[in-house]
């Protein structure tokens, strides 16, 4: 039974079982591979994307739950990779292997959109993604840097 999804501002008709996890519709049916699979049980956050601005662990929700809502993936954060959060990530050379970083950025972006100047405690509470390389130290610095860029009207 085909259904429609609005992803990164575009409408797509999906021919898949609507109970398929949103992650696999995004990756396999739409070919947006920036959103990653890692644990499959909503634990690690590698699959984090936004549904109506809220961070969602897309491996663990059915695609049908996102029908009629706005989905944003890492590919939709900016057209050129230069959203302030991406500039900040580059400034600190934040990623190592990079596999968790799409989800990490989407969690951090959701926080920044809710709270313009997050405290360390806010970051601890909201950016709960797992990184095996240990990029956390730079992730925290990059979030504070991005908050400054965004406050100064870069976007």
């Amino acid at each position: 039974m085909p259904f429609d999804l609005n992803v990164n501002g575009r409408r797509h008709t999906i021919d898949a079982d609507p109970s398929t996890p949103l992650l696999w519709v995004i990756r396999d049916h739409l070919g947006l591979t920036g959103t990653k699979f890692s644990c499959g049980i909503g634990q690690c956050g590698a699959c984090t994307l936004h549904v109506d601005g809220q961070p969602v662990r897309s491996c663990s929700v059915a695609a049908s739950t996102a029908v009629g809502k706005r989905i944003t993936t890492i590919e939709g954060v900016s057209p050129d990779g230069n959203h302030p959060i991406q500039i900040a990530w580059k400034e600190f050379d934040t990623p190592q292997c990079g596999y968790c970083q799409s989800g990490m950025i989407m969690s951090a972006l959701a926080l920044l959109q809710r709270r313009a100047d997050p405290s360390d405690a806010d970051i601890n509470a909201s950016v709960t993604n797992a990184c095996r390389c240990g990029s956390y130290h730079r992730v925290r610095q990059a979030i504070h840097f991005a908050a400054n860029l965004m406050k100064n009207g870069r976007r």
Partner: protein
Amino acid sequence: MSETKRSAIDRREFLSVVAASSGAFVFGFWVPERAAAQNAAPEINAWIVISPDDTVTIRIAQTELGQGVWTSNAMMICEELQCDWTKVRPQYASANRDAREKAPEWTLKVMGNGATDPKGGGEPGFGNRDRTGVAGIPDSLYRRMRTNAASSVKDGRYYLQLAGAEARERLLLAAAALWNVPVAELTAKDSIITHTRSGRRTTYGQIADRAARTPHPNPEAITIKSPDQWTLMGTERKNLDVPDKVAGKTVYGIDVRVPGMKWAAVKACPVYGGTVRSYNFDAIRQLPGVRSAMQFPIPDAALTRGRIFSGGVAVIADHWYQAKAAVDRMPIEWDIPQANAAFNSAGMRATLLAALDRPGRVRVDQGNVEDAFARASKVIEATYSTPYLPRARMEPGNATVLVTNDRVDVWIGDQSPQETRFSASKITGIPEENVYVNLCHLGGGFGRNGNGPQAEQAIMIANAHRATPIHLLWTREEDFIGTTYRAAGVARLKAGLDADGWPIALEVRTSMQEDGFGPESSFDVASRYYVPNYRFSNHTTKFHVPVGTRRGIGQAAHEFYRESFMNELAHAAGKDPYRYRRELIARTSLPYKDDMIRALDLAAEMSGWGKPLPRGMARAIALEERGAETNRMATISAMVHTVSISREGKVKLERVDVAHETGFGLVNPLSVKKQIEGQITWFYNDAMHQANTIKDGRIVENNFNAFKLSRIDEDPPEINIRFFETKHWLLGMGHDRATSVQSAIGDAIFQITGKRFRDLPYAGQDLSWS
């Protein structure tokens, strides 16, 4: 037309189809024929291609897994090439070409002998050249097409600098011939060649075509820059692949899409050595997207370095989630070897401990340990343990394989592509020269992408579905079955102290699973801390768990044992653990003792060692070394960890002060800092959270709900890293730094709570105090 040539043409056609299907997809791996067909940019040598627009393509023979090798390898080449760094584009080298062509003669005469290299270089440690590809193919084009042992910079620097220098010299010779001027009058900088006397200038891009056709008359005479001449190496360079990573564009193995591709989900027998007795495909064949199912045997141990994994079942479907849902619902019965199903953690631990009571293989026996114990004023004994630990890299195991009747293509993030080519040839019967392994970035490596049989499983499945590309992807649970583990181990350390608290006897006995890596590390040859009577023996026991080269290998466990025990001795002697270590290193005659002392001194100074801390906080210091017993290469660092523990027993690593040596020179200090930060997290997890247990022969913790990964809230708020200069070439620092977190948290727990825990991890222990 030869077989190989026909394959090359097939490949070009095939890949042009792939390129048309997805622009992003092509970026991640080497596409030689397509690159040649599209822009025909001149290749100066096997590492360097320069386009007319001055873009410099650098071919990288190691795999990028977060360590920064795409950038550090490019830096080593471009230091000599003297090109415009902003126009450098890394690209994976071709593993097939690596095997097909011989290395240029001028890379084979490697000068130097570690610390005494007259050209200021290092000595590639190529290890045994085993034809199975484990250690590389003798004199292959790129010298060393694998990524292991924190060795990419150490082993690569000499020939990579030479490659850059050879290309630069030929660019200069080409310009000199064009202008008919002596080459000595030309200068090269930022991709521009200038003849100052006549005011003529050209760019690398303009002269590259001529340079490609200009041989060097005497390449043996080319010299490389010593560290004091570096201008690019030694500077902090942001990693060249980071912009793609923050935009979600990087192509990992899991992201590979090939036209006509089907997906495979598998279940392997959860008890190693087990196989499939039966499965019922009829129960799932009607499910959406399902195409076929098949069973596969235990991968040939000759292809997996002797490790015995499991047989299993694969379901092939149009989409991965369909295959996964179907294999989950398919009835499977296993043939499980009873001997393996009898293994349980408690029994395995008892076996390891019991071995410590028996004489093992004596590796070192200096002085007379028994006599010294008899005259000791105090005897201290402690037994420590470390559990089985996996990589648990974030990207689950996967591989995409297309087998046709005369050719195999594998797309995979792989730290050892020549091993995978060997496997593909053996499994399919197709000659190795027609096997192409196309490298992708890895979502974490931590030891040959898990040492697991994901490639072998995928090749077996694709071989049964010839002409259909198969993308195998493990679930997280399968990844815990498919990875290899660091061997669990125990150690008993016993010291006799004299009346002043200095050790006069030390006996170390370790016991770990057979084939675990590094059973001698950190204790072999000589005690790192002075003791006149020293014995080290080890024991190994056969268990069924496949073990492999996990980040830190045996050394991470052994430094936990050694440094924990040094803390215990210092406390028993009533001495300061920093000064106690310092004095005992000063008393040795180890070649790098001065550097070890400097590391300890600097870390202590940085941390404010000795300054009072509030109740509930403590500092602990430890030494980290590899190779300190030799007089060749080594890597030395020391760290002080400042730890707080709440009255309720919550541990927080508050601050880490790191003193790390430079050796002759660090290639990219930014990458070194990131690796140090990352390893603090890695060994924090080993110390606090992580362990795999075995029940009825199965790995119990098989996803991130049961196997905990620390998050940003546990990251130390303050990390200070300082480098101190040393005069030897480093062994590498990508896998065995920050092992000190383990002993330091243990000692902080002791200082704050009075309780001593000797079994990792510490989580789950009652760490409260009042």
